């Protein structure tokens, strides 16, 4: 194609030699420490970062190759008109066009006609600036981000139980010292391998790992106890475990009395979750349920951790709440080394949800409908609180509304690839195509960028500086290690340039350090208070845990030791019900569960990792994992192409027969575009609180694929 040839011709020939710079991996929320430098550029693991202590997975080891991908964007691209190809253009031309279109559309349709979509991989500075840009430059309420598809259910559950959403209750090193860890719906051995070092150390000290997963994953294989649940039944499992905790006398009555409220209603509600009923719902044998409760309840320091498998459900918030109830009943939270935590997924999944790119939120994890919060933030921004819009649509609802009568007609998208990552992806693709204007900022031509009207080439991880907040709630420094190729701009530069063209009030620094200082002021006094954190402190102390309200405050590694952040300081028990389980059950037409997830070699929509040779070699294509018995009944053999169909679409992928999956379930990883795009199948049923789509379970039909159409 003309575009890629052009890019190759103008792309960087290879990054120049530099000194080693300490920074962090570009991928997941573990934010492994690494150094970047040399010529050609190489990465090496850092020993001084607790998260990885000298370890890296293959994604991390090969991260330097991201800096020299052959199809790196180095010039803006634009379509001359609808249907025209993307052609290189100048920055001024691209930015002028965007500003003019925004002006034209807003004059005609109002401010909410412009939507903004962010990402959990953006630095705190960029996420903050993007939220500010939407609220006072565009003055649109229509901003949300892909974190909605990540840990939003855990965030909502944490806020309602503890009054504060900080992923882990303490430093990651607590994992190694725990007596038991129960990991619900997380395959860390593949998704964040160095995390397993902490788990292994725990097990070597005599601690027990319990894994809850429909698949016997790489993580489950290392567990002392694997509870192989039916997809969509984690909530019933947790309620059943709480029932057994009562029966086994494992409640921490003192903790319940002194630090919590609402237990009686929960205790009564779990009376309908007696063991054999839960066994029938979940498929997990009663003796295993009992053993799991005993392992957790008898330890002094036990951790219950949830990940996407528990959270990405239409009842995700309630599911996480059920596990928090269990943790509270056993007296785990509020104690050094124990508690409930969420394993955040994206690189800045924690920080990205705190500073205002979420539809209902202002910086510092403030609520946008709170008058005091609006006044505080407006003062920092130098605007009248009146001009800050109210809450907007959540991620899927925003994408689903694009190009409709009352939805946005233009979308500015940063750090996300929803054509691959959103549920019911063909619907989202159709909505994106219906826009008057799609602007995508990215460093490669992702599947979403290919559909854009204007593409802005941006800097990537090792070319920029800023901060990220890892899964521990520890604020870390990302440092510039190599110069960006000529022609590329940072997102802060892009936002400043657009704000200027739009005549926005306030100041629009392009220096991350200055933006961070503004973020500190904006977050001051909020739940996620960064005001005491400085770049210098982060470097000196190896990161600072928020909340940190003053420069002489040590930061807060364990936020719940003395009190929870609710008005009365007590954690709240909230009764939750399994109801009828998954939004879409299996039936005669769609008799098999589909669950989706990740593989070791790839990250999220694959826009980055599918461009790295060794990762593609390790994991070249999507597949459908299924049990040999299921395959046998369907007439499918190992390696055969199968068609997997849900009520929303069809994919064709290669069958991979494994004994480690339930007979009633197939698994397809979601990293690929094209005819193996798993999210063509997934169900956008939304959680009523978090607005999380039900990625983790839907009903499908599986058939051998005959490419000549003989089976049509």
């Amino acid at each position, binding site marked *: 194609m003309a575009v890629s040839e052009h890019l190759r011709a103008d792309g960087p020939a290879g990054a120049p030699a530099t000194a080693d710079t300490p920074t962090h991996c570009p991928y997941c929320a573990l934010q492994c420490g690494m150094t970047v430098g040399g010529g050609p550029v190489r990465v090496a693991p850092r020993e001084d970062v607790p998260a990885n202590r000298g370890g*890296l997975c293959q994604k991390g*080891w090969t991260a330097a190759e991201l800096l020299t991908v052959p199809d790196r964007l180095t010039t803006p691209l634009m379509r001359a008109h609808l249907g025209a190809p993307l052609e290189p253009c100048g920055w001024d031309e691209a930015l002028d066009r965007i500003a003019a279109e925004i002006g034209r559309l807003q004059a005609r349709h109002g401010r909410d006609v412009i939507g903004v979509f962010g990402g959990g991989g953006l630095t705190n500075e960029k996420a903050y600036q993007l939220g500010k840009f939407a609220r006072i430059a565009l003055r649109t309420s229509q901003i949300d981000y892909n974190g909605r598809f990540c840990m939003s259910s855990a965030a909502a559950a944490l806020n309602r139980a503890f009054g504060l959403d900080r992923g882990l209750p303490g430093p990651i090193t607590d994992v190694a010292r725990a007596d038991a860890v129960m990991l619900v719906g997380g395959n860390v051995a593949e998704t964040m*391998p160095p*995390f397993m*070092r902490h788990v292994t150390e725990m097990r070597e000290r005599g601690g027990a790992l319990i894994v809850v997963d429909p698949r016997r994953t790489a993580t489950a294989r290392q567990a002392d106890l694997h509870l192989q649940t039916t997809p969509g039944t984690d909530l019933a499992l947790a309620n059943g475990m709480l029932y057994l905790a009562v029966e086994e006398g494992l409640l921490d009555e003192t903790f319940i009395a002194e630090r919590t409220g609402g237990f009686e209603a929960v205790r*009564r509600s779990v009376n309908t979750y007696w063991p*054999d009923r839960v066994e029938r719902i979940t498929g997990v044998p009663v003796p295993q349920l009992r053993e799991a409760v005993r392992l957790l309840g008898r330890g002094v320091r036990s951790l219950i951790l949830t990940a996407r498998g528990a959270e990405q459900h239409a009842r995700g918030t309630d599911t996480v709440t059920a596990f928090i109830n269990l943790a509270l009943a056993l007296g785990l939270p509020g104690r050094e080394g124990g508690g409930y935590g969420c394993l955040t997924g994206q690189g800045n999944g924690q920080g990205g949800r705190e500073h205002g790119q979420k539809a209902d939120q202002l910086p510092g994890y403030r609520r946008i409908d709170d008058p005091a919060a609006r006044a505080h933030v407006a003062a920092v921004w130098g605007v009248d609180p009146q001009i800050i819009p109210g809450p907007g649509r959540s991620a899927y609802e925003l994408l689903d509304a694009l190009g409709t009568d009352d939805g946005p007609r233009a979308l500015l998208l940063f750090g996300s690839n929803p054509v691959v990552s959103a549920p019911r992806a063909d619907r989202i693709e159709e909505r994106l195509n219906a826009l008057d204007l799609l602007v995508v900022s990215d460093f490669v031509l992702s599947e979403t960028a290919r559909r854009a009207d204007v593409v802005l080439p941006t800097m990537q991880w090792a070319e920029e500086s800023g901060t990220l907040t890892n899964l521990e709630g520890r604020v870390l420094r990302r440092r510039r290690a190599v110069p960006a190729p000529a022609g590329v701009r940072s997102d802060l530069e892009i936002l400043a340039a657009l704000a200027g063209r739009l005549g926005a009030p306030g100041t629009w620094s392009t220096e991350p350090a200055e933006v961070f200082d503004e973020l500190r002021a904006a977050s001051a006094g909020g739940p996620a208070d960064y005001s005491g954190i400085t770049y210098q402190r982060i470097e000196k102390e190896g990161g600072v845990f928020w909340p940190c309200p003053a420069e002489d405050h040590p930061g807060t590694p364990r936020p719940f030791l003395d009190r929870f952040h609710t008005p009365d300081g007590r954690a709240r028990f909230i009764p939750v019900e399994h109801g009828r389980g998954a939004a879409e059950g299996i039936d005669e037409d769609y008799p098999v569960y589909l669950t989706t997830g990740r593989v070791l070699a790839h990250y999220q929509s694959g826009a980055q990792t599918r461009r790295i040779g060794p990762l593609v*070699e390790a994991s070249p294509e999507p597949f459908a994992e299924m049990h040999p*018995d299921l395959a046998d009944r369907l007439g499918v053999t190992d390696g055969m192409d199968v068609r997997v169909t849900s009520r929303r679409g069809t994919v064709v992928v290669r069958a991979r027969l494994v004994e480690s999956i339930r*007979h009633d379930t197939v698994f397809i990883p979601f990293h690929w575009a094209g005819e193996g795009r798993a999210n063509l199948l997934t169900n956008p049923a939304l959680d009523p609180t978090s607005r999380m789509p039900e990625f983790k379970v839907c009903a499908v039909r599986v058939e051998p694929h005959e490419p000549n159409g003989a089976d049509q």
Partner: protein
Amino acid sequence: MTQPSGSQGNEGIVVVGNGMAGSRFVTEMRERDPRVPLTVFGAEPQQPYNRVLLSNVLAGAARPDQIGLVDPAWYAAHDVDARLGVEVTRIDRRARLVYSGDGGVTPYGTLVIATGSTAFVPPIPGTGDGLPAGALVFRTLDDCRRILEAAGTTGRAVVVGGGLLGIEAARGLAGRGLAVTVVHLAGHLMERQLDPGAGRVLARTLARLGVHTRLEAQVSALRTEPVPQGDDVGGARTPSQGQAARSGADGGPGARVTGVELATGEFLPGDLVILACGVRPDVALAREAGLAVDRGIVVDEMLRSVTDPSVRAIGECSQYGGTVYGLVAPAWEQAAVLADLLAGTDEAARFTGARQITRLKAASVELAAMGETQHGDEDPEVEVVQFADPARGTYKKVVIKDDRLIGAILLGETGTAGMLTQLYDRAAPLPSDRLSLLFPGVNGAAVSDSPVRMPDAATVCHCNNVSKGQIRACWEQGARTAEEVAARTRASTGCGSCRDAVEGIVCWLDEQEAAPAG
């Protein structure tokens, strides 16, 4: 047949019965419709509780205050008019009114009957107009309290009836230190759920736990003695109304039980006698109201009385397709279907029957049973897979037809019960490996990776995609320790779990080198 499914007029929904089915319906209904007027009558004075857990209370595994189902404050908070301790005495279907024992008259648009069952008391001498002190049925929380009270003052109990409830009661009492004998009419215990072999293993297990069994034994009378004046006869009570109990020669209130007489003339002494002879649907109100009643109130798949579509019946008092469903799972399914229909949340909701799975709640006796368990090897269409180890109390049997599970017993060890119940519930095709139906963990058990026997192509380090062959090549290039291999290949630098395997391979290669060629 297109009767409107919403409540009629302004009168709303009246529920008679606040047990497992009734209380479930009330909460399900409120969840779907926060406004429709909702009244519930419960004959028992306390908040609804989980009847399934009564055996746990009897056994001491749960306290009576720990089995509640609905928070007392819930009714007021959700605008439900709860009339607890108030019995409904009459239904006037023409006027659409229910009359209650407190003199009240309540209009309804839709009436939901969920009166459940009452314990059946066999018509034998001694059961009189009421049971003598020390003779009790086991149906309600009140019954449970009385049994516990009586158990505290005696060392010997007789349980009449070796079905599910009788065995749970017997096991609970034995656990409290009583010598217990179960008297059972049939040739083996739980004959409706178990085949004779399983019944025998169960009896053997129970004997070890202090519960003795008398099979094919018919009780001819309860033996009683008069209670001296002034003694507390608190244990005596009339069995629930609408009962088939008949007056006998003596006994009844004012007397105290001393044991049971068998048809053989034998006498089994016991100051506590529990009558666990089954239950009967409580259909007196429905029958008096002129509704079609067979064994239960006859309903269609929308849970409507076939006589009057504004009357619905759920739970153990109803009968669908010729079957009275006596377990909680179908009752709750009916409650959800009815709530969907009445709230309009799912007009297509139907109850079309349910599969019943029996689980025994008795300490140290694990038992799950479902479907047709009596089959032997006589029918060539039916495949029976079984295993028995009576000495250890284990008996397992699955009955298969057309590659579907049609019956199963797991006794002693129930590790595969979760899998079997789901396969049975869904009538799903079975795993090809039948052994995995009986024994947990045999299907796809992890194979330990011996680094030595691995092929070169096998991946040792998954995190960094390093094969054994690459490690060998690295060793051949001079790496002699796991650290050197890690530095060159990155093997073990991810999650670290393959460190032992990498060391094993390096060690093995070192040994190969040291070994004399030959």
